[in-house]
C-alpha cells in the first residue's frame, strides 16, 4: 500500500507543545503542507507573536523571527520592504492582531503591504491564562469576565476581517475555521490563496481562523470543535469577506 498522508517536510519533527485539540497545531500543519506544496520553504519568513504560538519557530522549518506583541504587521512590513523577494507572513492571535496591534494591522493593510496575516481567533487570551480577548463573545466567561462579557462594560467582539475588508489596500480577506475535515480543507485553500495573492503582489491578505482553545474554554477537545460550529460562527460567519482577484480559487 502507498503512503498517502504523512508529515510535511517543512514541519520539524518536534512534538507540539500545544494542548490536545488546539487549533494552532492544525493551522501549523496546513501551513507547512502549503509551504511544501507551493515550494516556498526557502523563501518564506514567518513572524510569530508572543503568546501560545511564540514557539512556532520550533515547528516551522523556515526562517522565523519573534516580534513584540501586536507589532507583527510592522515587522513584516520592514522585512518585506527590505527584501521583497521573500514571502512574509505574520502569525497572530486575537489579542495581538485585534487589540494591541490594531493600528499596525490596519495601516499595513491600508498601505497594501504585500504580506499575509494568519489571524488565529479563539476568543480568549491563551498563554496568559484565559483572559478576555477583543473577540470574546458576549456573555462568554473568561478569567477577566467571570460573569460573562457584558457589552455595557467590555464592548462587543471586534470583527477584524470586516474592518480590514473596508480598508482599500487589502486584497484578500477570508474567515475560516479549523474544526472539521471540510473546514480544515477550506482553511488550507484560503491560506493557499492568501499566499498566492502575495506571490502575485496584489496587496495585503489575511485569513482569520476560528480556532478551538479547549483548555481555556474549559471543554473537551471534541466539545470545543463543536462549539465553533454551534456558537462562534454565529458571531463570526465564515466565508470570503473581500477578494479583489476575481478568481474563485488560486492557482
Amino acid at each position, binding site marked *: *500500500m502507498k*503512503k*498517502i*498522508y*504523512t*508529515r510535511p517536510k517543512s514541519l520539524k519533527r518536534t512534538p507540539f507543545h500545544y494542548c*490536545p485539540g488546539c487549533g494552532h497545531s492544525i493551522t501549523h500543519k496546513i501551513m507547512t503542507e502549503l509551504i511544501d506544496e507551493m515550494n516556498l520553504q526557502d523563501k518564506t519568513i514567518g513572524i510569530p507573536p508572543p503568546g501560545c504560538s511564540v514557539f512556532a519557530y520550533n515547528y516551522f522549518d523556515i526562517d522565523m523571527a519573534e516580534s513584540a506583541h501586536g507589532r507583527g504587521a510592522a515587522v513584516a512590513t520592514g522585512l518585506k520592504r527590505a527584501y521583497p523577494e521573500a514571502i512574509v507572513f505574520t502569525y497572530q492571535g486575537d489579542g495581538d492582531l485585534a487589540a494591541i496591534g490594531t493600528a499596525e494591522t490596519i495601516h499595513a493593510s491600508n498601505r497594501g503591504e504585500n504580506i499575509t496575516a494568519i489571524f488565529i481567533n479563539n476568543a480568549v487570551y491563551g498563554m496568559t491564562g484565559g483572559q478576555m480577548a477583543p473577540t470574546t463573545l458576549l456573555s462568554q466567561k473568561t478569567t477577566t469576565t467571570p460573569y460573562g462579557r457584558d457589552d455595557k462594560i467590555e464592548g462587543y467582539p471586534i470583527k477584524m476581517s470586516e474592518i480590514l475588508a473596508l480598508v482599500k489596500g487589502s486584497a484578500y480577506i477570508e474567515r475560516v475555521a479549523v474544526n472539521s475535515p471540510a473546514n*480544515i480543507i477550506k482553511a488550507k485553500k484560503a491560506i493557499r490563496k492568501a499566499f498566492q495573492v502575495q506571490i502575485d503582489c496584489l496587496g495585503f491578505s489575511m485569513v482569520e481562523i476560528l480556532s478551538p482553545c479547549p483548555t481555556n474554554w474549559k471543554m473537551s*477537545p471534541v466539545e470545543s470543535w463543536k462549539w465553533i460550529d454551534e456558537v462562534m460562527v454565529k458571531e463570526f460567519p465564515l466565508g470570503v469577506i473581500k477578494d479583489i482577484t476575481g478568481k474563485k480559487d488560486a492557482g
Partner: protein
Amino acid sequence: MKGYIEIDQVLCKGCEICTFFCPKGMINSSDKLNPSGYRVAVFNDNSECTGCAICAVVCPEVAIEVYRG
C-alpha cells in the same frame, strides 16, 4: 482492506478528535499512556478502513500516517 493508518504513539495527545471524525469508528482511545502521560488513540485494524485520511486531516498533532492501496 483498502487502507490502514499508523498512529505515532509519542506524538498523540489523546484528544479523541480522530475518534470523533472517523466515519467507520475505526479509532478508539485506549488505556495506554504515552511518555507524556496521554491516553493514546489506537487503530482498530479490522479491515473497514478505507484510507480516507479524515483522521489525518483533523489530527492536530500530525501523528497519523495514512496508507491506501
